[in-house]
C-alpha cells in the first residue's frame, strides 16, 4: 500500500495528537494519525477547554503553559473562529482574607515566571462578575487564562495539519527493526510504516508504551463536568475557588471537588471539577454531583434555579509527578511520548506538539524538556 508509509505516525486523535500532527506537518513531515476511537473521543471530548496559567505554581509545567498560551493565541488566528477561542481571563476567588493572602503569595511567585495577575478586592468582585455571591474575600484576575471548545479545536488542528487520519483503528503492535528502532505500527487494517511513532494516546499512553517495550505509568483520574441549560452570558470569566489550585496539585486518590464555573459561547455554563482515582469507572456518583452543584451555587447563587442537562465523566491521564511525558523514549529509538498531561492537555497541547516536532526534525527545543523526559520513569535495570 503506497499510502501506508509516512514520516511519523501519531497514535491518538485527541488534542495533543492533533497538535503533534499540526506542528510536525508544519515542519515538513508527512503525518498519519491513528486512533482506535473517533476524533477527540477520549479525554479531549470530555474536557472543558481550559487554557490556564493561573492554576500552576512556578515550575516546568507553568513554563509549558505560558508557551502554549502564546501558541494558542497564534492558532486562534489561523484556525476557524468555530474553535471558540476566548481570551476571557480567569478569576480566582477566595472565601476569606486568609484565602486571599494565600492567593497573593501564589500570584507573586507566578509573576516572576511571567504570569500577569491583578488583585481584585472583595468590593470589586461583582464589577467583574455581577452574579458572584456576596461576602467573598476577594480574588485575582488572570488575563492570560483562556478557553477553547476542545473537540472543535482538536478537529480543526487535525484538518489544518493535512495529516491522514485513520479513526476506529486500534494499534495492536509497535513495529521495531533489528536495531530496536521503531519502523511503524500494526493495526487491524494492516501495517503502517514510519521512522517515528508519537504516543499521544492520553490515558492509554501507558499501554502504547508497553506495546513498544517502553514504560510509562499513566493512570486515569476521573473528573465530572456538569452542563447546564443554555443561558445568556451569566459568567464572564473562568471563575474558580482558591482551593482548586491545591486540588490540581494534589496526588490524593480521594474525591476532591472545587468548583470551576464558566460560560460558553454556545450558552451552557460548564461546572467542574472533581478529581478521584477510581480507574475507568464511568458510573455516576451522586456525591460528586451534589458537591459540584453545591460549590457552584455557593459561588453563583443564581444558578440554583438553572437546570443541569447532562453530566459526563472524563479521565485525566496523569503521571506520578503530575508532569507530562514529552520526548524520546529512553529504550526505544524513534518512539516519542506526548502524554500524561492530566487535566491540562488542552492548554499544554501546542507547546507539546511543537517540542515533539522539533525533536523529530533535529530543531532547537522551544523550552527545557528535561523535567518532562520520559526516562524519569524508566525502571532501574
Amino acid at each position: 500500500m503506497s499510502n501506508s508509509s509516512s514520516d511519523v505516525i501519531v497514535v491518538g486523535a485527541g488534542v495533543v495528537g492533533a497538535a503533534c500532527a499540526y506542528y510536525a506537518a508544519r515542519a515538513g513531515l508527512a503525518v498519519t494519525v491513528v486512533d482506535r476511537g473517533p476524533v477527540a473521543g477520549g479525554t479531549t471530548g470530555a474536557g472543558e477547554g481550559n487554557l490556564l496559567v493561573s492554576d500552576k505554581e512556578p515550575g516546568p509545567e507553568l513554563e509549558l503553559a505560558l508557551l502554549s498560551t502564546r501558541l494558542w493565541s497564534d492558532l486562534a488566528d489561523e484556525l476557524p473562529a468555530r474553535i471558540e477561542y476566548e481570551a476571557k481571563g480567569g478569576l480566582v476567588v477566595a472565601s476569606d482574607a486568609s484565602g486571599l493572602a494565600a492567593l497573593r503569595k501564589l500570584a507573586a511567585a507566578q509573576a516572576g515566571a511571567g504570569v500577569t495577575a491583578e488583585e481584585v478586592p472583595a468590593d470589586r468582585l461583582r464589577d467583574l462578575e455581577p452574579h458572584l455571591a456576596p461576602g467573598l474575600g476577594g480574588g485575582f484576575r488572570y488575563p492570560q487564562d483562556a478557553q477553547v471548545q476542545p473537540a472543535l479545536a482538536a478537529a480543526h488542528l487535525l484538518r489544518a495539519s493535512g495529516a491522514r487520519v485513520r479513526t476506529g483503528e486500534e494499534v495492536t503492535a509497535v513495529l521495531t527493526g533489528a536495531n530496536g528502532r521503531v519502523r511503524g505500527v500494526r493495526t487491524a487494517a494492516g501495517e503502517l510504516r514510519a521512522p517515528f511513532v508519537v504516543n499521544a494516546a492520553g490515558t492509554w499512553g501507558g499501554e502504547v508504551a508497553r506495546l513498544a517495550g517502553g514504560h510509562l505509568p499513566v493512570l486515569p483520574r476521573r473528573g465530572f463536568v456538569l452542563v447546564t441549560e443554555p443561558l445568556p452570558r451569566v459568567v464572564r470569566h473562568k471563575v474558580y475557588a482558591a482551593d482548586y489550585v491545591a486540588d490540581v496539585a494534589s496526588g490524593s486518590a480521594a474525591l476532591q471537588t472545587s468548583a470551576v464555573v464558566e460560560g460558553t459561547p454556545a450558552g451552557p455554563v460548564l461546572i467542574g471539577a472533581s478529581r478521584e482515582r477510581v480507574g475507568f469507572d464511568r458510573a455516576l456518583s451522586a456525591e460528586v454531583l451534589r458537591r459540584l452543584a453545591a460549590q457552584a451555587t455557593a459561588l453563583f447563587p443564581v444558578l440554583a434555579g438553572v437546570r443541569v442537562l447532562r453530566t459526563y465523566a472524563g479521565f485525566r491521564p496523569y503521571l506520578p509527578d503530575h508532569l507530562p511525558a514529552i520526548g524520546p523514549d529512553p529504550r526505544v529509538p524513534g518512539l516519542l511520548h506526548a502524554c500524561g498531561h492530566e487535566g491540562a492537555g488542552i492548554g499544554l497541547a501546542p507547546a507539546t506538539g511543537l517540542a515533539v516536532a522539533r525533536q523529530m526534525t533535529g530543531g532547537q527545543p522551544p523550552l527545557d524538556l528535561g523535567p518532562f523526559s520520559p526516562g524519569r520513569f524508566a525502571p532501574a535495570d
Partner: protein
Amino acid sequence: MPGSPSEPYDLAVIGAGPAGLAGAATAARLGLSVAVLDAAAQAGGQYFRHPAPGLGAARPEALHHDWAAFTELRRRFEASGAAHLAGHHVWAVMRRDEGLWSVHALVGEDGGEGAGHGGGTAFGRGGGLADGGRGGAGADGATAPGAGGGGMPRGGGRGAGGARGHDGAGAGVGPVTRDGRGAGARADAVSGREGPASAGAGDERTVRLHARAVLFATGASERHLPFPGWTLPGVVGAGGAQAMLKSGLVLPGRRIVVAGSGPLLLAVASTLAAAGARVPAVAEAAGYVGYARSPRTLAANPHKLLEAAVHGTALLRHRVPLHTRSAVTEAHGTDRVEAVTVSRLDRDWRPVPGTGRRIACDALAVGHGLAPQTELATGLGCATRRVPDGTHALVLDGLQETSVPGLWAAGEAGGTGGWELARVEGELAGIAVAARLRALPALTRGRRVRDLARRRDRTRAFADAMATTHAPGHGWTAWLDDDTDVCRCEEVTAGSVREAVTGLGARDARTVKLLTRAGMGWCQGRMCGAAVACLAASGTARGTVPPSAERRPLAVPVPLGSLAAGPEEPGDA
C-alpha cells in the same frame, strides 16, 4: 417495613405502563415490597394515557381498543400492595452497594405538579381513602393536609385513574408547596430532607429511595426522521398527537396528514379521524410487504391482525387514503404548516423525482416507530443490542434480567413490541425478581413462566418482523436540504452535520455532537439521535466506529439547587 429512610424496597419499578404495573403487581403478590416510580400523574404509561379525571370522560375506551384489559391490570396493581409514586421523574439509578440500588427522582417538576393534582383527584374521588402514606404520590398528595382541596376546582366521584394508599405505613406526607399543591413526594422513602430545599425551579426536590432490585419498564419514545419544514408549528409527532388527544382531548388542527412508518400510524389516523379530524392522507414509507413474508409469525399473532383490521376498517369508514412507499418530504408554511409534499419512495426510501404531490393541511402527525428508552439502564452498564429497525434495546436473558445482575427490564426497553408483550414481560420479570430475592428458584420453573415465555417469544418474533419492515431505508437522507434543521433544540442543520462528517472526520453520533452541538440541547438527542447517527454513518468508508446506544447520565434535567441539596450519600464518596 420498607418506607423508612434506612429500609430499602425489595423492588423499584421505573415506569407505570403495562410492563411496570404487571411487574409490580406480580412481585408484590409474591411477597415483595414494591415501589413504582412514574413521571405522570396517572398510571398507564404512554399507550394507556387517558383523560385526567377533571375532563369527565365517560367513555375512555373510545380511545383504546384494550381499555378493559388495562383497567383489569390496574385493578390488580392497586390490589397488590405495590406503592405508586406518581410525579416522580427518575433522573438516575446508581449502584449503592452490592445488591442495593439507589433511585433518584425529581418531584415537584413539570409533571410533578400533575402528581399533586393526582393527589387532589384521589382525595376527591376516594374520600375516605386518604388514610396512609404508602399509596404513592397520588395518595400522598391526598394525605397532605389541605393538598386535596387547595385550589382544586374539581371534586368527587369521577374518573378512573390515580393511586390509592393501601397500608398506612410511614408518615408519607409530601410537603405542601406554597400554593397548596402537594409536591407528591414520599418523604418517608427519601433522605429526610424537608421541604423545598432551594430556590430550584418550581420548588423541585430530588428524592432517593433504595431497592434490592430494579425493573426498568421505561417504555419507548417516538423516533423521528427530519425533513424540510418539520420544525413548523403544526408538525407534531404521531405519538404526540395521539398523546395530546388521549390526555387532553385536543387536536393540533382540523385537517391532519399522518405520515412516517410503523403500525402506530394506522392507529393514530383512525383515532384522529374518530375524534373529528379530517385525515386527507396517511403516508407510510414502508410497503407492508414485510409482514407477508412472515405468514407464520402473523398467524401466531391473530390479535395483531385483528388490530390492523380494526384500524383498516376505521380508515375506510373515514375515507382515509393510505399511501404506502410514500413520505412527507417537505412541510410548507411560514409560521405554521399549511401544506405538505408527499412523494413516492423507491426501495431505499429515496424520493422518486416528479412524484411529489402537495396536500393542504393544518397539521401533520409524523413518526417513524418507537425507540426504546434505555438511558437509565445503560448508565449502569447494561448491554444493548441492535434491533432490526436500527434502534438499540437492552439485552435481556430468558427471565428479563439485563446483563447487570439485579437489574431487570420489561416492555419496550427491551425492544418495542406493543403493550401485551410489555404486560407479559412485566409478569415474567416480577416472578424472576421474587424468585431471586426470596431465594425460591422454583418460582421460575412453573408452567406459568413457561407459558409467559412462549408468548413473549412469539410476540417478539412478530415485533422483529415488523421492525425489519419499518427500518428506515438509507436513502431517506435525500429528503434533507443542507439547511434543514436536524437538531431541533440547537438548530443544527443537515449541512453542518455533513460538514463535520466530510470535513472533520466525524464517523459517529457522539463525535458529530461534539463538533456541531447536534444532540446537546434540552432533549439530549432524543429527537435527532437517529438522524444524526444515519448522517454520521453515511460518511464512513474504512474504520467505522461502531454506533453505541446513546448515553444520558441524567435522564431528566435537574436544577442545580436541587442537586446541591440532594441526599447525602456517605457511602458513595
